[in-house]
């Protein structure tokens, strides 16, 4: 019964979405306030109805209702409770439901907290947001209904894919969707602005927090996925340039560009048309990502839907929204004349360069991702584009971005003198180069990767520190500290996020350049050296988990006779899903991870054992978390809240459109 109610709620939400997509838009065009006012309660209703549908599906999973097909395919009574919850979105249908739940949540947030928006703009934004909702409700209801019942319910389910039974992966999709779908808000704002034909500083101020939120969720989501791959797949890879990873990475890059260009619109009223285009493209890439994951057009290690019908449906959604928005853009972008004047050397120009690098980097990822498709279609060549291509083609952009970042961040607006602006950075530059040179002479290998990584991290973190320091101005220590505490949070956010990028870059460079690997057959009780450590295989035992059986090794890592870590790598077998997984044992450290994997028993009684020393591996994800924290700091900036209050105080100033 509850499942049917959920299905019914979803259909109702679809109906409400149709109303919300049409009525407020017409109201805004005609200036009918009562029609515009429909948007707000409709957005709330849509969200609550979708929440009810999602709740019903969750209920079916938690109570293991095996008359529901989706539950049978993705659950089992023995599964731990956390994974009964995460099983809801660990499949195509359920994850689409989560997708629209987040979509309607963002719409409802715009309705609840958008009281300071001009009524016309708000009505249009909510209409466009709801139009996206209509498309995806239709997609779920007509092609991927999660509430399908079975005539003859089986006794038990087929269990969730064991690889997904993991805390890191339980939260990876929700964060990723918060990011993907968050970009729909920027899209709605962009289209609403195009319909209105006005983009100003206030518009940018409203768009920026949404983009920032989406970007920071996307950062966390991507980091979670990469961290999961690192510890779960058994060889410690963290990024594979897989089409589906690229699908989440492209919106991230475009969102990062959008964040920065919106600053220019907000502060200087320039780059308007470009910012609108980025907002449209960012969501476009989100949709492309959805299409790639669920159509099976591009072979990816993430197999999700592989259903051509669904792929075609998403392609139609993509075509309608991108085609519509870009046509509107072509018609209206010309009217968005820029106002701000700035010279060649200025913060504005630096941000233009930032945007060029990020956008072209996204383009490189895009073309690399779809090239196999194009090559087969037009040149009849079946080929692969893998990590070596992306590493070669993408990395220069990242390095260039990191090189200009501290300089750009310190340039003043409008007109700058380069010599004066970079003066505080000379010390940082010297330090960075010295650190790089030192590592270059110390390391035995031929790789320039690690020195470059170190130079960049010192340059970025030092540059951010120098930026914050110069903001404290002249004067004695006390006045400096006072200024430091009153510095806007957005400035702190900038410094923190930029440092985070440096830390991630260093982590990637260090682990790639300095990783040590040892593969061997070890007898029970045998000790073998790996790098500066000695590893002992003490014992191998068989154990039973809640829904799996495990082979568990007991291993000791020592250094100069002192015990560093006691580790228990496992190999699990999930009998219901008939699938083995490796559970690497990792000793996380500040400067290195010790990464142990136990393999198969050998004929001579030994065990295959893999040992890795991964220097600075944690820095990759620490950097991502720091970047997200920077976004959070910036999001909590005072002006987003105070400006909101100031607007409310003068309601008469907002013209009725």
């Amino acid at each position: 019964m509850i499942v049917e109610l959920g299905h019914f709620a979803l259909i109702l939400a679809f109906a409400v979405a149709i109303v919300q997509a049409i009525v407020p838009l017409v109201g805004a065009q005609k200036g009918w306030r009562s029609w515009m006012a429909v948007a707000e309660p409709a957005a709330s209703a849509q969200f609550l109805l979708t929440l009810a549908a999602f709740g019903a599906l969750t209920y079916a999973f938690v109570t293991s209702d095996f008359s529901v097909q989706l539950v049978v395919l993705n659950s089992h009574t023995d599964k731990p409770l956390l994974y009964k919850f995460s099983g809801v979105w660990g499949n195509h249908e359920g994850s689409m439901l989560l997708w629209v739940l987040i979509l309607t949540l963002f719409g409802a947030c715009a309705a609840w907290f958008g009281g300071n928006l001009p009524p016309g703009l708000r009505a249009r934004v909510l209409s466009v947001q709801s139009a996206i909702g209509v498309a995806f409700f239709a997609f779920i209801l007509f092609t991927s209904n999660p509430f399908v019942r079975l005539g003859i319910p089986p006794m038990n389910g087929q269990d969730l894919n064991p690889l997904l039974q993991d805390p890191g992966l339980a939260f990876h999709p929700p964060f990723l969707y918060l990011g993907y779908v968050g970009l729909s808000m920027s899209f709605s704002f962009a289209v609403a602005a195009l319909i209105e034909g006005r983009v100003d500083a206030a518009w940018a101020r409203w768009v920026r927090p949404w983009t920032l939120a989406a970007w920071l969720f996307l950062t966390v989501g991507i980091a979670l996925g990469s961290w999961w791959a690192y510890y779960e797949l058994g060889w410690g890879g963290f990024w594979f340039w897989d089409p589906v990873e690229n699908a989440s990475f492209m919106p991230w890059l475009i969102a990062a560009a959008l964040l920065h260009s919106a600053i220019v619109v907000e502060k200087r009223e320039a780059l308007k048309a470009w910012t609108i285009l980025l907002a449209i493209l960012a969501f476009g890439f989100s949709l492309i990502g959805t299409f790639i994951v669920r159509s099976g057009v591009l072979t990816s290690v993430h197999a999700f839907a592989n259903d051509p019908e669904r792929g075609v449906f998403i392609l139609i959604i993509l075509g309608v929204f991108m085609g519509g928005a870009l046509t509107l853009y072509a018609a209206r972008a010309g009217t968005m004349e820029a106002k701000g004047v700035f010279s060649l050397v200025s913060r504005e120009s630096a941000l233009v360069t930032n945007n060029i690098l990020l956008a072209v980097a996204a383009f490189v990822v895009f073309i690399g991702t779809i090239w196999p498709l194009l090559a087969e279609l037009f040149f009849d060549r079946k080929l692969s584009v893998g990590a070596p291509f992306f590493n070669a083609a993408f990395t220069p952009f990242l390095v260039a971005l990191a090189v200009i970042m501290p300089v750009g961040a310190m340039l003043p607006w409008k007109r700058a003198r380069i010599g004066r602006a970079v003066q505080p950075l000379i010390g940082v530059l010297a330090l960075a180069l010295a650190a790089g040179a030192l590592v270059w002479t110390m390391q035995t290998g031929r790789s320039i990767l690690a020195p470059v990584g170190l130079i960049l991290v010192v340059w970025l973190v030092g540059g951010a520190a120098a930026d914050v320091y110069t903001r404290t101005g002249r004067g004695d220590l006390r006045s400096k500290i006072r200024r430091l505490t009153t510095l806007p949070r957005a400035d702190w956010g900038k410094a923190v996020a930029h440092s985070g990028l440096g830390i991630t870059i260093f982590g990637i460079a260090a682990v790639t350049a300095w990783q040590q690997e040892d593969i061997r057959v070890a007898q029970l009780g045998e000790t073998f050296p790996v790098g500066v450590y000695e590893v002992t295989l003490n014992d191998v035992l068989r154990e039973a988990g809640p829904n799996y059986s495990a082979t568990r090794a007991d291993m000791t890592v020592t250094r100069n006779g002192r015990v560093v870590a006691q580790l228990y790598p496992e190999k699990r077998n999930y009998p219901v899903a008939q699938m083995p997984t490796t559970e690497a044992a990792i000793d996380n450290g500040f400067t290195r991870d010790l990464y142990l994997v136990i393999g198969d028993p050998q004929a001579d009684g030994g065990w295959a054992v893999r040992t890795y020393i991964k220097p600075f591996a944690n820095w990759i994800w620490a950097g991502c978390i720091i970047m997200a924290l920077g976004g959070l700091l910036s999001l909590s900036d005072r002006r987003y809240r105070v400006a909101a209050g100031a607007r409310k105080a003068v309601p008469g100033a907002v013209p009725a459109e």
Partner: protein
Amino acid sequence: MKRLILMLCLLAAPVFAVQPDEILDDPVLEQRARELSRGLRCLVCRNESIDESHAELARDLRLLLRERLVAGDSDEQAIAFIVARYGEYVLLKPTSSGANLLLWIAGPGMLVIALGIGLIYVRRRGRPAGPDELSGDEQARLDEILKP
């Protein structure tokens, strides 16, 4: 929803990627084999190199590659040998021949174009555009806002 397909590979052969018995005695040769196998694709696992893959086929390819290296092939010869048998699909790094040239120059080409457009835009912003007075629309809006 990551790497579910890996399941297929795992099911096929629940083993390690590079196994202890595959490793060559000569560390220099082994190092070369590892480098090369990172650039070759496992044909049954999607988008994984044979160095990372657990599949049986990847193991065969690794052994084949090592055989060729032991037989005295250069890196290029060994790769050419495998490409001749499995097609250019096995190359994770596409060649720059023919149409693939487009792929390789797409990034740098786009960068040059974008920088050119950016430069033109920035230079134009250097000059104040048009008169400083408000346009008719703006004046009307200002009047509206300033209306008591």
